[in-house]
């Protein structure tokens, strides 16, 4: 059916594609939050397939090295930004912009635990990190990198936490699935270890990975 529609509309489509692509470019340029192809398609009342195709075309076009801008898929949506490789030249012009926010290592570790184990409670986070105190949670909440995710059905009904869309945006992730699995980290660690001594009995079952 799709094909038939496409065939019926073909001449018209072909004709207004550059026009539509121009509109999509303008839209991606002005929006502050990454918008999904669905959102854009619904708002401009165009078939999702076509919108998606043209957006991907834009992503590819801006990917070329002669462009200093890029359109990337972040947090499930499309977003325009400068390319990282030109940061030095661009930085000279953006001094007035807010300084990037720094996160301490404890904050990053806590964020990593939440990203992989969500929804996760404070005691669980402390257990993995091996330290008491979850002070960085407030920082992460303030920055909107994490949010509350209901209560866990155990004694005390502790609050759980999850990462937010802002987290995806700030870390340039398309979605959570884009995060490497924890297992991959383990393998990296093992490769680093010069394989002179074979792991002994203990290593039979590496701890289950619960990403």
């Amino acid at each position, binding site marked *: 059916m799709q094909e038939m529609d496409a065939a019926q509309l073909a001449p018209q489509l072909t004709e207004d594609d550059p026009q539509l692509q121009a509109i999509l470019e303008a839209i991606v340029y002005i929006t502050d939050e990454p918008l999904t192809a669905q959102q854009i398609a619904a708002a401009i009342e165009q078939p999702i397939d076509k919108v998606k195709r043209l957006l991907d075309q834009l992503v590819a076009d801006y990917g070329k090295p002669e462009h200093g801008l890029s359109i990337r898929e972040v947090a499930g949506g499309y977003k325009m930004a400068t390319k990282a490789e030109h*940061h030095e030249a661009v930085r000279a012009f953006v001094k007035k912009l807010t300084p990037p926010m720094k*996160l301490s290592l404890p904050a990053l570790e806590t964020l990593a635990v939440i*990203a992989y184990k969500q929804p996760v409670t404070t005691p669980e986070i402390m257990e993995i990190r091996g330290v008491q105190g979850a002070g960085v949670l407030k920082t992460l909440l303030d920055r909107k990198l994490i949010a509350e995710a209901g209560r866990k059905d155990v004694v005390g009904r502790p609050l759980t936490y999850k990462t937010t869309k802002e987290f995806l945006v700030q870390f340039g992730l398309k979605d959570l699935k884009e995060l490497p699995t924890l297992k991959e980290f383990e393998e990296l660690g093992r490769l680093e270890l010069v394989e002179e001594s074979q792991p002994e009995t203990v290593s039979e079952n590496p701890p289950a990975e619960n990403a």
Partner: protein
Amino acid sequence: MSSPLNFHLEQYDGPLDLLLDLIRKQEINIYDIPIARITQQYLEYMQKAAEMDIELSAEFVYMAATLIHIKSRMLLPRDPELDKLLPEEDPRQELVDRLLEHERFKSAAEMLQQKRVVEEAVWSNPQIAQFRAEDDDPGLAVTLFDLVKTFQSVMDRAKHRPVYEIGTEEVSVPDMIRYLRGVFEQERGPVSARELFERQRSRRAMICLFLALLELVKLQAVGLTQQDSFGEIGLKRLKGFEAAFAGGETLSAIEQGYN
């Protein structure tokens, strides 16, 4: 024994970090930790930290106890017959699991760090503001956390406000004068008399409020306004407001009058 760590006394975020550092720096096979050696080095670190007045948290002590416990279990001879029946887990197993788990998350944190570095080199310049109508107020995007935080700040503000507990049977006219003073110190525009009365939780409080208002009107500290007949009665502070409360004499005079 010389220590593998140059004890400039690195600050470790917790005992797991310290242990991992000991293991990785000496290229020890994590699946076969020489527990006696590691325990000794661990205790050495704690010792040095104590000498340098670095306060280690309780987890460090707890981990020391765990290490010593594992060490003693490793030293105990095992009954070969019992082992066949009930093969005992390596006493180090649980610790190894925790260390590996912790290390994975450290790697994950590093990965996030790297991603941030890239994002920090990238700027965007959204122009949506130019296309938004002036009347739609962007306001605040709201999360549950914002809600709690807001409530917390409202409560804090309430705590630091000179508000008098009202609604108790103890309330008196001077109490109400003080209460009204607080209201009009914050509010310069007209205050609805009806709303003020609605806030009172007892008949006595309402009567006291009424008498207090009369006192303030008499002192020309507060004036009554009414837009149209039978309309809302508004209360507004007048020029005499400051003078009425200056020195505190007026208040104490009224206080005496009612006591």
